């Protein structure tokens, strides 16, 4: 119950003000199509430099929580999911809106998000200290395999092609080796002065997530967004609350599915929403109503995508392995304050860790309250023309990258990686494993070198890295995730024509 001890810290004027700012800003950013939660959090990091660590994390955590929920606004009112996590919400949410139940759909989505989100954060609260204690037993070989596991799991599960996913991870791991070697001080791959100090994670994250989005907006040319906002009629909130709890099966399925999926590194909110929607449909007594504007569809999808937020941070806070791209960005936010997450986080910085987690708990409630009231405003912001959005995101990316170290080199790195990532994405590569490789690369290398030294002085490299039940378990998960993804890829190709695959990819992009 240590989290209760630090609960008061959330309510100091500055912390609470930042929580409000992050929540409201996140709702608006989340409602804006094209601004994914990861990109929103990455663009916010430069604004946290002058804040205390827990204040910065409160802002980023609130933005993460509410961008996921805010994406439902444009999914329901514009039929454009604000983020991939909201794709499933569109199926019934927009149909409800076209039938004059837009307000009800929004209320259900925010209430379900809050219930799912609260459950997810409680899971984070109770699982994290237990896993952190367990993680203290990890040695260099385990941490090395864990870092490799983080890259391979996200590389294989988050990508349409296993080989390209793993290749993206390798590119990230290689980028992490650029600069001076920590032990020998030798120069490695320094092909331009801008990277002589290595690749700074924050500009890299901004570039990898923001610039491809800017270029995608450029590719639309001067076309106007013809999405029409559906007007929202009033709907008593009391009835929406009753409806959410009347549909308890959908709520429970969404919440539990989202929480479990959140714990698996790399799977993400998009899968959580779609799996929960599918499972609710299977278990529902009114399964034939799904897709026709049925409240259970909205409740299942939204409770799931917010329930995964808390659990997705468990691997980050306990093992320092970010389980999702947004968690990787949050790791960047911690590192700039000199805080390294992992088992020691709760011993050395309990105030930072618990205040952050508590703020996510309160943030879920604020997100629900403000979401219900500013949904209309958020929907208007969602109609900002892509020309304006592209220019704003580019400007923020340049200023944000520059402000990290007051260096144009960081801006060049941001732009180069961003442009390269856009082209890589067009050829089936994915940003998530690349980012994970970039962030986990130094962890993997440091533990590999440390482990090799221990191994050379004791049992030998092969025995040290490949024996022991924990090494075996981690290697088995790496092999299993690759094998599973290869098998899924073969199966999906067997049943999907090339045209289907192309159409699906176009729809997702």
């Amino acid at each position, binding site marked *: 119950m240590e989290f209760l001890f630090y609960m008061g810290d959330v309510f100091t004027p500055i912390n609470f003000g930042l929580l409000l700012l992050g929540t409201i800003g996140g709702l608006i950013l989340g409602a804006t199509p094209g601004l994914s939660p990861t990109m929103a959090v990455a663009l916010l990091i430069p604004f946290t430099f002058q804040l205390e660590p827990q204040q910065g994390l409160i802002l980023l955590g609130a933005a993460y929580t509410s961008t996921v929920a805010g994406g439902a606004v444009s999914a329901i009112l514009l039929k454009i999911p604000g983020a991939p996590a909201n794709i499933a919400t569109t199926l019934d949410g927009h149909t409800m809106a076209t039938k004059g139940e837009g307000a009800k759909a929004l209320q259900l989505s925010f209430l379900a998000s809050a219930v799912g989100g609260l459950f997810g954060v409680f899971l984070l609260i109770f699982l994290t200290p237990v896993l952190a204690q367990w993680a203290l037993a990890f040695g260099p070989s385990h941490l090395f395999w864990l870092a490799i596991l983080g890259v391979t799991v996200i590389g294989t599960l988050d990508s349409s092609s296993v080989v390209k996913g793993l*290749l993206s991870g390798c590119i990230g791991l290689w980028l992490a*080796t650029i600069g001076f070697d920590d032990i*020998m001080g030798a120069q490695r*791959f320094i092909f331009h002065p801008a990277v002589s100090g290595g690749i700074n994670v924050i500009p890299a994250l901004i570039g990898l997530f923001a610039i491809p989005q800017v270029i995608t907006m450029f590719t639309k040319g001067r076309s106007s967004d013809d999405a029409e906002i559906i007007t929202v009629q009033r709907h008593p909130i009391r009835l929406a609350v009753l409806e959410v709890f009347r549909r308890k099966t959908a709520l429970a399925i969404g919440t539990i599915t989202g929480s479990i999926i959140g714990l698996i590194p790399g799977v993400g909110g998009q899968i959580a929403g779609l799996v929960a929607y599918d499972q609710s449909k299977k278990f529902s007594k009114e399964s034939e109503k799904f897709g026709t504007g049925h409240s259970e569809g909205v409740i299942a999808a939204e409770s799931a995508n917010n329930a995964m937020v808390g659990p997705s941070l468990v691997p980050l806070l306990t093992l320092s392995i970010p389980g999702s791209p947004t968690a990787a960005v949050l790791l960047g936010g911690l590192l700039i304050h000199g805080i390294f997450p992992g088992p020691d986080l709760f011993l050395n910085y309990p105030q930072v860790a618990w205040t952050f987690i508590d703020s996510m708990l309160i943030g879920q409630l604020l997100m629900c309250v403000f979401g219900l009231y500013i949904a209309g405003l958020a929907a208007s912001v969602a109609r900002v023309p892509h020309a304006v959005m592209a220019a704003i995101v580019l400007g923020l990316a*340049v200023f944000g990258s520059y402000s990290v170290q007051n260096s*144009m080199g960081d*801006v*060049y790195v941001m732009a180069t990686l961003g442009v390269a990532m856009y082209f890589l994405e067009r050829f089936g*590569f994915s940003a998530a494993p690349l980012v994970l490789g970039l962030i986990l690369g130094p962890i993997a290398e440091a533990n590999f070198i440390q482990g090799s030294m221990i191994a050379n002085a004791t049992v030998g490299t092969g025995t040290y890295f490949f024996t022991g039940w924990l090494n075996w378990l981690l290697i088995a998960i790496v092999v299993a995730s690759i094998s599973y993804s290869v098998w899924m890829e073969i199966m999906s190709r067997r049943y999907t024509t090339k045209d289907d695959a192309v159409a699906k990819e176009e729809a997702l992009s």
Partner: protein
Amino acid sequence: MTDLPRNQHIIASGLIAGVGLSIAYISFTQEPAAAFVFPRLISSVFAVLAVWTFIKAMLGRTKVGNGISAQAMRNMLPGLIVAIIYIYWAAKGVGFYTATTVAFFVLLSLYDPAPHTQLKSWLKRIAITAGFMAVMYGLFAQLLNVFTPREIFF
């Protein structure tokens, strides 16, 4: 898959394979060898996967990634050129705020669907640019005390 994406896949995967092999070569030839132990491990896997991808592209068996259509390329090119000039030259050479203002306004004018013949749409673009720059200046120069390159202009 048409020939355009197939050729694009061959070029893209060829470039990546080239990078992978170069990294592997550097990792295995550079000294001190102890500093390149981890890069050797990574670059070996990198090179194998990159060559695999290239061979698949050559055989026309690439199934993921739609490439870039000629229309998308035509649409993105002006914006990309403006962004590249802004980032790699103007921001430092001309002055951070001046370059950002000009780049923002040019990008807005290039991609805004509002007609270029109406005075109202130009006034709107100027107002949006001025508003954005005011917010950027307030946030970064005043609040965060970020010192940006001034050079020729502000």
